[in-house]
């Protein structure tokens, strides 16, 4: 068994920032990640990282844009603390080495992005996430924080009311181990792999949310799943940053004629408009990057150009690129305070796996990376402070043996005709069709019964591969279980919210109902099933 003050689960931008902050606050820290941190989903963020740096901008302007995109579900106090710290964190990243694009005065350049009313998305070409992640990982290494890479967390250890650590399987060693901690920070990312197609990495399967939920944590606003408006939808789906729209790209029909769409709408509205235009006679829609000019495409969007070529087989300087809205990032997650505290003492959550009220019903484009670093720091510090002040609790003695038994049970038995990939593929289709950009009561009911039967099928599936080293079938079994658990919560929350707001569009309840629904949905586990409550927005 290993022992630390703070264990961080997840090696993306939020996890690394939290680990750095906790370490600098004096805690002993370890980071566990199921892939190498530099391979995490943060690497694929492209467009920018928001901070109100312009002379024409202010924290107040920034807050107003966030509240508008959040469509009534943002928590004002959380937004306020976020906008006050955003610039500080971006400056910190700059000092640590992010090679931001510069304006003519040598200051950090900012570009227009999504529904930001000012130019406030700081960027490093179209690889902003990759650069931010790289620099965070550098600073993480600078502090010598132990990094358990390719370790898959199988359970939270909760002793009475408090979280006291995790158990994890080392993919390379094939061994289970216990990690005792005074505080655990979940920074496991989103869950959008429950949709097919989606814009996310293979590991974006909601592991942390499911672990917290099953251990007594609460999930908030899980029905709010943002669809990204400009995604090449074939194969795995290739997100094309909508920063290209503000730089001059057009949305056109098959004949190349521009389609009338307000390109500066919030993502949810833009996605609806694109999907609506496609259904209303324009057929398939395309992105036309030619108005940006070849030189600027190559200099400002080199990665877009590279990936459009290698993934879609198209030339972004000449060809029209087919697009449609595709499931991107959830706003919902583990309910936390601004300091990341959850309903379980000693358990913290941050980043895309958490919901602290910043994003409400829709996230402002360019806020994901800022959220990772602003709250990563806050939550890392809060967890370190908690670890310092809390009495040491014992890691439950039988926990590791129980987990061993669980793994043994999964890997012994008859191999069924059924498979994890089939269950996952059907879940993806079901979520996309019934719990997608537009939902209705009937479809949601079908989704719930579909999810239930997929859960029953999943429970019967055994892992055919009896090995432990790099047994990806075994880890996939856990991941599919997490996605099924959360898919049920997403569909139930969507069913409960009988209105349309932000990313949640109900065909049967098309208006926003501020009388009954200026509230978050809160889901908790009661007697083995999900129970949904309302929590009014505080302001």
């Amino acid at each position, binding site marked *: 068994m290993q022992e630390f003050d703070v264990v961080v689960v997840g090696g993306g931008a939020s996890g690394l920032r939290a680990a750095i902050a906790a370490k600098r606050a004096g805690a002993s820290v370890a980071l566990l990640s199921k*892939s190498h941190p530099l391979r995490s989903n943060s690497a694929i963020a492209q467009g920018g990282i928001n901070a109100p740096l312009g002379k024409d901008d202010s924290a107040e302007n920034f807050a107003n844009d966030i509240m508008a995109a959040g469509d009534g579900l943002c928590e004002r106090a959380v937004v306020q603390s976020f906008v006050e710290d955003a610039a500080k964190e971006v400056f910190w990243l700059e000092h640590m080495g992010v090679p931001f694009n510069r304006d003519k005065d040598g200051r950090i350049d900012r570009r227009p992005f999504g529904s930001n009313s000012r130019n406030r998305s700081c960027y490093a070409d179209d690889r902003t996430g990759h650069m931010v992640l790289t620099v965070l990982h550098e600073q993480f290494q600078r502090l010598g924080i132990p990094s358990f890479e390719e370790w898959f967390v199988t359970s939270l250890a909760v002793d009475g009311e408090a979280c006291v650590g995790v158990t994890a399987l080392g993919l390379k060693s094939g061994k289970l181990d216990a990690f005792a901690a005074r505080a655990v920070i979940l920074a496991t990312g989103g869950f959008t792999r429950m949709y097919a197609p989606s814009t996310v990495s293979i590991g974006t399967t909601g592991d942390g949310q499911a672990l917290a939920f099953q251990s007594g944590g609460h999930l908030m606003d899980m029905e709010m799943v943002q669809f990204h408006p400009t995604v090449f939808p074939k194969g795995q789906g290739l997100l094309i940053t909508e920063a290209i729209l503000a730089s001059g790209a057009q949305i056109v029909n098959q004949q190349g004629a521009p389609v009338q769409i307000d390109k500066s709408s919030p993502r949810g509205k833009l996605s609806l408009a694109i999907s609506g235009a496609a259904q209303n006679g324009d057929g398939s829609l395309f992105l036309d990057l030619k108005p940006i000019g070849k030189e600027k495409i190559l200099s400002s969007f080199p990665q877009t150009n590279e990936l459009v070529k290698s*993934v879609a087989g198209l030339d972004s300087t000449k060809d029209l690129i087919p697009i449609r809205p595709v499931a991107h990032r959830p706003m919902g997650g583990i309910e936390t305070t601004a300091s990341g505290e959850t309903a379980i003492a000693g358990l913290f959550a941050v980043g895309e796996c958490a919901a602290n009220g910043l994003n409400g019903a829709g996230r402002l484009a360019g806020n994901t990376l800022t959220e990772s670093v602003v709250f990563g720091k806050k939550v890392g510090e809060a967890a370190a402070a908690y670890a310092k002040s809390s009495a040491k609790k014992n890691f439950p003695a039988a926990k590791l043996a129980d987990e061993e038994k669980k793994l043994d049970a999964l890997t012994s038995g008859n191999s069924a005709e059924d498979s994890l990939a089939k269950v996952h593929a059907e879940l993806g289709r079901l979520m996309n069709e019934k719990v997608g950009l537009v939902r209705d009561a009937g479809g949601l009911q079908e989704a719930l019964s579909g999810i239930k039967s997929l859960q029953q099928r999943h429970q019967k599936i055994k892992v055919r591969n009896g090995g432990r080293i790099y047994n990806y079938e075994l880890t996939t079994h856990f991941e599919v279980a997490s996605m099924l658990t959360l898919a049920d919560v997403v569909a139930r929350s969507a069913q409960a919210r009988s209105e349309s707001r932000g990313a949640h569009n109900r065909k049967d309840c098309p208006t926003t109902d501020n009388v009954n629904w200026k509230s978050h949905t809160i889901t908790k586990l009661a007697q083995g099933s999900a129970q949904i409550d309302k929590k009014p927005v505080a302001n």
Partner: protein
Amino acid sequence: MQVTFKVYRKDPEKDGKPGRSNYTVDVPDGATVLESLFKIRDEMDSSLAFRCSCLRGHCGDCMVRVNGSSRLTCTAKVSAYTQKGPEISLDPLRNVPVIKDLVFDWDAFMWNKISTVKPWLEADDATANGESIAADAQMKDLRKVMSCYHCGMCDEGCTVLPVDFKFLGPAALTKAYRFVFDPRNQHAKEQLKTVEGPKGIWDCVHCYEADEHCPRGIEPTKRIVALRDEAFRVGINNEKVARHHKSFAASVKESGWLDEGRLAIESEGLTNVSGLMKLLPTAAKALVRGKAPLPYMHAKRPGAEQIKKIIEKGEAENK
């Protein structure tokens, strides 16, 4: 289309011996090698181990050799590799310890080497004055280098690593470039010293394979050459190869051509007795075979004065 994948196999929990499995799969048009691997794992052999993460060319995790050449499986289209017939071989990268099947030891292959260069900026938190002011041209160069997604293709193509696995390799040295040339770094000189030491920049044979292999056009060899120039510029050049360069230039400047005897002695270092002793057998052989005229005299070649002027002009331009 029916395609047979011939996949390298190794199971550390069984006999640990390398082997190969053949899987014939029906793959749809436009399928990638990665999608085929998923199909094999799901439908035919759940024990098959391979890595991947982003699924679309962002992250570099899924690097293997496809028909012998290193490729990201997520962007490699099956159809591009079946033109000579419906067979594709899949292997781990060359010269890398393999753990299981296509999963190799990234730590030994690359991450540990990168750690050696202390891969971080030593900078203060000071943010009161906002960002540091920098020209975009300088940042643009760093962005190019930092677009590296650690796919390992440069190290895979390196011709030194198969001979000397302790060589830091182009990936780690390119990482060092990023710190040495970042104006915000307070420890650039330390990092330069690290890579100027044994197994560092002087061990590169500038075969330019790394540049050929890098899918992002980062040109690692050129970065290594820039580090060498920088080492000379700031006066960190105590290594044998640096002495070799100096002696080479001095000889040509003085006599118009190379004085090999002087080069050997000055490269070893005049105070390096054990190094000089090692030269003796070679010197003796050269004498026996008439390759070293006695008495040892190195004459100027015709036109030596003009060559000297060319070199001096170049030195003046470099200042």
